[in-house]
Every structure is written in C-alpha cells, then in structure tokens.
C-alpha cells in the first residue's frame, strides 16, 4: 500500500469530486415533472426531484433544507440547475449553494409566466451551458484525506455481520486514520450494540447521544405497538438467518470499525471535521444513503448479504457481499466479492487492501455496476406531517 492517491475534480470550496455531474434539482413536487423533462433533454445530467416540500415543520423542514442544499454542495456535483415554484425558498437554496462558488442557475416557475414549457425551455438552455462549463474540468491528484465516505448495509444476512461489515470496518479505520471523513448511520441497527458504540465515543456526552438516539427509536416502535421482528430484521433478513435486532445490530456496527466516534449527526448534517461520525437517521437504505450524500459523502461502501441493487444517484456506491451464493449469482450487482474471506480462501487483511484499492479506483473514475445499470436515486426522509 504505497500509493494511495486518487484522481478527482477539485472544487472551489476545497472539496474534491469523484464525479463531475450537472445536477438538475427540483425543490418541490410541483416542478418535478418539468425537472424530469429538462433532465431528459440533457442526457449527462443527474436529476433529483423532491416529491414534497411545502409546509414542512420543525426537524422535517430543517432536514429538508439541509438535504436540498447538501445535494447541491456535494463535491461530485460540478454545477446545479435549480428548478422550483417557491421563489424565496429557491433563492435561499441558491444562495447557500452559491456560497461555495459552485456554478449554478436557478429558474423559478413564477418568472416563466407560470408556464412549465417556458420553464423547460429556459432550464434546458441554462443547463446546457452549465454542462459545457463543467466539461472543461480535468481530474487532479487527490489524497485519502479528501474523501468523505458513508457506510451502509442492506438486505443483510449473517455473512454481512461476520465478514463484509468487518471488512468495511477495516477500510473505515484506514480512511479515518488517514484523515478522511467517515459516516455510519441506521440508528435502529445500533439497538443491542449501543454499549459497544458508547465505549468508543469521544466524550461522555457523545456516548449519551448515541444511547439516547437508540432509545428514541426503540420507544417509537413501542409507542406504536410495533414489534421489530418482521420489520427489522425484515423478512429477507430472517429468511437468510438473522433472528433478532440485537444479532443484526452487532453485525451492522462492525462497518464502523474500531475508531473513536467524534459526534452524532442529524440527517444530512455535515461532519464538523475529519474522523468517524454517527448519523442518527433511518435504517432504510434509500433514505440513509441520501442522508450521507447530502452531508457530503462522495462515495458509499454498501454491504449486502443476499443482494441489494439500490445505490445512490450522486455518490458512486460500492456493493459488496461475502455470501458465496450472492458472489456466484450477482456478478453484475456486486462490485466486490468478499466470499473468498467467508470461505477461508483469502485473509481479511488482504481483502481489506483490495477493497480500499477498489474504492480509490472508483473514486478516480471507474464506474460501479449501479452507475452503469442506472440503479441510483436520492430519497429524502419525511418524519412527520406538513401543514
């Protein structure tokens, strides 16, 4: 492991992208269809449409704004084409993203005589110019410390907890020690393992925040008379051999490695500095991944047991499994096959080296199966009612 550099797109705010995308972002449900039409006319663009946005309250409203701004600020996004119908909100988001000096155009339906076709025309023209501008950028050498990585598991089986997640943990340790940012989340899957996480907290206060986050989710399930069995672990987990949330959690937290936990983040909240952070958020993959991406993750390491095709749209997602069956049957879903470790044919340390190299390879431009096959999306969690 001598040369651990990678090649990325330097941004004006000091971050480095592993991709250089034009993001077409509709900030509320009303302009979603227009945004999709615009993105279809700009075949290199990535399109994220928010299905809701009006009348959100409290933590929901904050998470929503953090997510929209965070997608725009993500280092993989070279330029942003914002589309909306609520002008003050559109301007607020545009100003927050433009503060990073990222190229941006914001087009409001109100300024187009309320005509979605006029909006479409203006947005396609503005987007085309942005696409040309960002296409002039070239990759430059970047360091491990320029990375921000989110860790996820989904459709897990016991091989996830025994092999794939501990492998991610070894890579997380390497990244964190090199000064990168690393985030893990899925609060419900700390349940039964929170005592182990609390021991690794940087302060007693952070330990208490970790425990409190778990208690809040546990209480939420109880207050609705909801047994977790069948939900988490879910039917796929159970069929694969996971029996209880404790068993699943003990395997899930292995992704976080052994590093010191520097803080507990809210959904889509950016880490304050380098190191390992816990994000208190949904355990369901689409919402969890988007929380990391909005917080600045350029890439995701995502373990599965039996298989899981879902990836982030904006952050290349490396899918791995240690399940020998998945390794044989999901050749065009798994970017990394960890089953040789499960079967005793490869050491965990060798596999972790290989996984880190794969990560840097993808960071430098090699595509993931999820990117090639278009399995990506961004989904912002919705917590409560709106006005």
């Amino acid at each position, binding site marked *: 492991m001598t040369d651990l550099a990678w090649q990325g797109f330097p941004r004006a705010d000091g971050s480095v992208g592993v991709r250089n995308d034009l993001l077409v972002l509709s900030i509320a449900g009303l302009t979603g269809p227009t945004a999709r039409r615009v993105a279809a006319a700009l075949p290199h663009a990535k399109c994220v449409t928010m299905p809701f946005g009006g009348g959100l309250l409290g933590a929901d409203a904050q998470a929503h704004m953090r997510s929209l701004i965070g997608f725009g600020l993500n280092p993989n996004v070279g330029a942003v084409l914002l589309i909306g119908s609520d002008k003050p909100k559109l301007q607020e988001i545009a100003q927050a993203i433009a503060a990073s000096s990222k190229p941006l155009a914001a087009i409001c339906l109100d300024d187009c005589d309320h005509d979605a076709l006029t909006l479409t025309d203006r947005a396609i023209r503005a987007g085309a110019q942005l696409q040309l501008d960002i296409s002039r950028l070239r990759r430059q050498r970047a360091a491990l410390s320029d990375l921000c990585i989110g860790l996820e598991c989904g459709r897990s*089986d*016991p*091989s996830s*907890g*025994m*092999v794939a997640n*501990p*492998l991610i*943990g*070894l890579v997380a340790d390497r990244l964190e020690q090199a000064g990168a940012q690393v985030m893990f989340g899925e609060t419900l899957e700390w*349940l*039964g*393992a929170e005592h*182990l996480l609390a021991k690794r907290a940087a302060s007693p206060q952070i330990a208490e925040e970790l425990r409190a986050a778990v208690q809040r989710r*546990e209480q939420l*399930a*109880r*207050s609705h*008379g*909801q*047994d*977790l*069995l069948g939900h988490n672990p879910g039917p796929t987990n*159970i069929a*694969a*051999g996971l*029996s*209880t*949330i*404790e*068993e699943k959690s*003990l*395997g899930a*937290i*292995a992704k*976080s*490695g*052994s590093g010191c936990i520097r803080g507990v983040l809210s959904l889509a909240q950016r880490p304050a500095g380098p190191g390992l952070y816990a994000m208190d958020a949904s355990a369901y993959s689409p919402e969890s991944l988007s929380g990391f991406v909005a917080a600045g993750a350029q890439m995701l390491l995502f373990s599965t*047991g039996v298989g899981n095709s879902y990836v982030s749209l904006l952050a290349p997602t490396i899918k791995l499994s240690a*399940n*020998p*069956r998945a390794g044989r049957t999901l050749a065009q879903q798994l970017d990394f096959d960890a089953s040789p*470790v*499960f*079967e*005793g044919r490869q*050491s*965990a340390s060798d*596999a*972790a080296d290989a996984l880190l190299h794969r990560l840097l390879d993808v960071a430098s431009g090699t595509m993931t199966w999820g990117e090639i096959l278009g399995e990506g999306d961004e989904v912002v969690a919705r917590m409560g009612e709106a006005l």
Partner: protein
Amino acid sequence: MKDPASKPAAASEAAGALVLHPHDNVATALRDLAPGETIGLQGPSHVLTLKVSEPVALCHKIALQALEPGQSARKYGEVIGTVSQAIGMGCHVHVHNLKSDRAQVQPPAHPSRSG
C-alpha cells in the same frame, strides 16, 4: 481491533460452522447442514465437532449446547436474545425458539377494541 465483533472471521474448507467468540453458545453454518452429520467447528470454540440434529441452512445458527428457555443466546460474545423454547445441542436456533430482548410489543396505552 478491540471488539471481537469487528474482526473479520474466516472459515476453513473443512469446517461446517463458525464460532465467533469463546463465550458463544451458537455457531453459524458455513454451508447447508444435514441432520446426522458431524461437522468441524472453526473459531474459538470449546467443542471441536458437533452432531447436527436438524437441517440448518447456510448462515443460519446451530446450538453448540442444549439451551433452556430463559437462557441468553450469545454470538459475537454478546447477547442476541433469549431462548423461548428448549433447544437441543445441534438444533437450529432462529425466530421459532429465540426472541429479541428489545423493542418488543407493549400493550397500547389506550384500551383494546377487541374483547
């Protein structure tokens, strides 16, 4: 690597199941296991071989010892739940005989509609 849970485990070709921690009383099947066969165990186990009493599918759990209702099942050296029905040595340990200690249903605060 401070926690056993964060250490990647490896299996040998010969072993039929993997024990993750010396305090564990369940092991994880490394292949589909058939009743009657005697399997080798990989990992920090007190027993080296185990007779399989029931079919246990790949990645599912097998009891390393007889377990009584109320006893804790341990994997990764940690409690993963409480045994709800007697489990014989070499039997399948899963949702039919092991229950979570956490996030169980409690009666709703309001009176039940059913009689």
